[in-house]
């Protein structure tokens, strides 16, 4: 069997001592920068790129890829422990992961995040090996109308994110949309809400908003409480997930992996969309959605799997077509070019050791991450026993360092502080944060795709229903609306009849 032989060949490449070493360095560096907010794989890879000139192309790619998916792992650790989203994609993990930690269940949360990520990484790697090229061709069928229809479906489905007061949830979605508008309009280059401040012309960074409202807001909130915060002396339950935890998690992990693979193959979707989708799906499917936001393990397992599958599958367009789906992938392509390799479909046939070696190394890297992370859980959890008066300045310092490194400027730190205050106010007033962040992520993308679709069709809205893929998403959207509205209408009728 070809695939089998290819994978064996790939492992023989990846398991060489040198490549194992670079894989380990990559995932270790990735984990570290993942824990820190702000400094992400993009900046790290750019800085480390010159180091890779002197090593073999396979080793270079293995290390850079390791940094990238290692960061996805590390991001969840700080999210769960201290509500600090280390990477964009870890924001969703903050919602329930941090609550679990508050209830003394940081161990199971971290463990399930690692297990979910490992499973998703394995599936993602297999998917690249089995179906890379055909999947990339399907992804190319997605133009502006398809992406818009897909995101419209997502936004409608997001109504399930709403909790408690519907008006407050809608207000927060709108708040997110408005914040997402800040910056330069893609189509005309016009400035929107930047008030002549040049630092705002590229928009507000997602990580700035997320760290502000989650990490800083939470700290202000805690310090606002009169009593010294109950340090997590509340009996720490076992470090590892119970049998019930696992039973509750395997479904979300499977579904999250599927969603992550789907979004990962499509180059035009942002980083947090896969994990948000998985979270919404799990909340919708749960028998008791009320538990979400209060430490539901499904809310950690699903999004973490989705996020890692997404990260893994983002390699498909890069490896099979030589097309960059994101800034990180563009850098990896650059690294290949510098090594004298022309990226593109011919890499698979001309440089099989590179293609299969990298794929095998991804699986090895994922395994290393689990081995690296599981023993660390005990250490991480101990960290929570540090008195809060010592812990919170450390969180603030790390946040500030990370945010500063985004653009080496103090402006982002001030902005983060502002969002910290806003986040605190929202928390106290009972405004949910998740809908705001979803609006912030989806809003700008939807606007971009809608306007591009309109531009290219000459203003004809029929473009959304005449193209088959787009029409499919629109039909599903309508179905979701019907399913949501019909019971509500029936209930009202019943009330009126009474």
């Amino acid at each position, binding site marked *: 069997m070809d695939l089998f032989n290819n994978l064996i060949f790939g492992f023989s490449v990846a398991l060489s001592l040198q490549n194992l070493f670079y894989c380990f360095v990559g995932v270790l560096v990735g984990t570290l920068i993942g824990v820190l907010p702000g400094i992400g794989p993009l900046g790290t890879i*750019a800085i480390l790129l010159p180091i890779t000139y002197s090593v073999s192309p396979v080793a270079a790619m293995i290390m850079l890829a390791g940094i990238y998916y290692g960061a996805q792992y590390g991001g969840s650790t700080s999210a769960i422990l201290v509500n600090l989203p280390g990477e964009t994609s870890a924001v969703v993990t903050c919602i329930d992961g941090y609550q679990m930690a508050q209830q003394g269940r940081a161990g199971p949360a971290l463990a399930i995040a690692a297990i979910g990520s490992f499973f998703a990484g394995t599936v993602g790697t297999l998917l690249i090996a089995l179906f890379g090229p055909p999947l990339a061709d399907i992804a190319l069928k997605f*133009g502006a109308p398809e992406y818009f229809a897909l995101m419209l479906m997502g936004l409608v489905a997001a109504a399930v994110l709403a909790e408690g007061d519907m008006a407050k949830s809608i207000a927060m979605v709108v708040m997110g949309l408005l914040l997402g508008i800040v910056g330069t309009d893609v189509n*005309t280059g016009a400035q929107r809400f930047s008030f002549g401040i040049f630092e705002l012309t590229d928009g507000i960074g997602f990580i700035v908003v997320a760290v502000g409202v989650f990490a800083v807001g939470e700290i202000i909130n805690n310090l606002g409480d009169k009593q010294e915060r109950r340090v997590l002396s509340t009996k720490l339950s076992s470090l590892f997930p119970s049998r019930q935890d696992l039973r509750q998690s395997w479904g979300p992990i499977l579904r999250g992996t599927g969603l992550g693979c789907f979004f990962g193959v499509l180059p035009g979707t942002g980083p947090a969309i896969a994990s948000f989708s998985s979270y919404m799906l799990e909340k919708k499917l749960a028998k008791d959605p009320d538990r979400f936001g209060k430490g539901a393990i499904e809310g950690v397992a699903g999004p973490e799997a989705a996020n890692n599958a997404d990260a893994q599958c983002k390699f498909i367009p890069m490896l099979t077509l030589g*097309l960059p789906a994101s800034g990180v*992938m*563009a850098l990896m392509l*650059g690294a290949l070019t510098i090594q004298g390799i022309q990226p593109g479909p011919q890499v698979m046939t001309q440089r099989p050791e590179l293609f299969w070696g990298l794929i095998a190394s991804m699986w090895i890297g994922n395994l290393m991450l689990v081995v690296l992370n599981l023993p660390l859980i005990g250490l991480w959890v101990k960290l929570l026993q540090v008195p809060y008066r010592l812990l919170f300045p450390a969180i603030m310092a790390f946040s500030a360092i990370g945010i500063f490194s985004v653009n080496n400027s103090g402006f982002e730190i001030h902005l983060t502080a502002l969002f910290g205050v806003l986040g605190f106010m929202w928390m106290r007033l009972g405004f949910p944060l998740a809908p705001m962040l979803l609006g912030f992520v989806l809003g700008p993308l939807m606007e*971009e795709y809608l306007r*591009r679709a309109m531009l*290219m069709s000459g203003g004809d809205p029929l473009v959304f229903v005449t193209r088959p893929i787009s029409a499919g998403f629109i039909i599903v959207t309508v179905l979701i609306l019907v399913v949501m509205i019909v019971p509500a209408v029936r209930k009202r009728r019943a009330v009126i009849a009474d």
Partner: protein
Amino acid sequence: MTIRSLLLKTVAALLALTTVAAAQQYPTKPVRLIIPFPPGGSNDVVGRLIASQLSERLGRQIIVDNRSGAGGVVGTELASQAPKDGYTLLVISIAHAVNPWLYDLKGRYDPLKSFTPIAALASGPNVLVVNPGFAANNVQELIALAKKSPGKVGWASAGVGSFQHLGGALFELQAGVNFLHVPFKGGGPAMIDVVAGHNQVMFSSLVQTTPQIQSGKLRALGVGGLKRSPILPKVPTIAEAGVPGYEATNWWGIVAPAGVPQAVVDRLRKEIAVVQTAPVVLEQFAKEGADVLQMSQADFAAYMASEMAKWEKVVKASGMKAE
């Protein structure tokens, strides 16, 4: 001559001596190199490559400081305010010559007067590519098609005011055609759309596009340099293929805040000239599709001024500045 003025003159002379001495020893501490774009872009690649080599020659660390925002304006303004002692340098590119026409820089900096040019580093042309399924096989056919259906041929760019946008707008102006401009957030997404056939035309940077051209996912109709590129020797220049005088070349250079001591400029120029032609740099430039660009200080200043004048016309004719 009063005692006071004598004193002043003495002090001034002493000060001048110390600056000369300082310049001779330059650099005595790490040098900051501001790159006004995020890591990973062409400015960053060229800047870091030169920085690492220059560090060795100068014997002092060169610290790369990425300060992105507003198409490079944020980092450039920061550099213009730095002390003029040679310890803050700035990597500029074609964006430096275009930004005055896109942004209101009044009260911030003057692209020519606020800086002392140090040295040009490299240049790289753009390339006109189309989706392989598109009917145009050469520049003439593209012009004919675009003239037949004005505003219909989809042209993807990396965003308003980007190098990709400028190259296309110059083509529109000189060939007398009108495409449907579809801006993206960055060159990667734009290229994906052209490969997929959702858009047809792109004026992309040569280096980022070469792999797609060689694998047949995109068809190159012409390169934007004055000469054919050694990477694509069979592809004509756009000028020889039907748009005489067309040239869209991105370039990179190093400048310092205006008034930096000439001794510092001379030292830097001397070392940069060595670094530029070092085999390792030449090799990297070749892979990046860039050519070494060496000019005298005066020529570099004149080149910046001529680029500003050239792109002012294009920006104003295309209406790319948003109000």
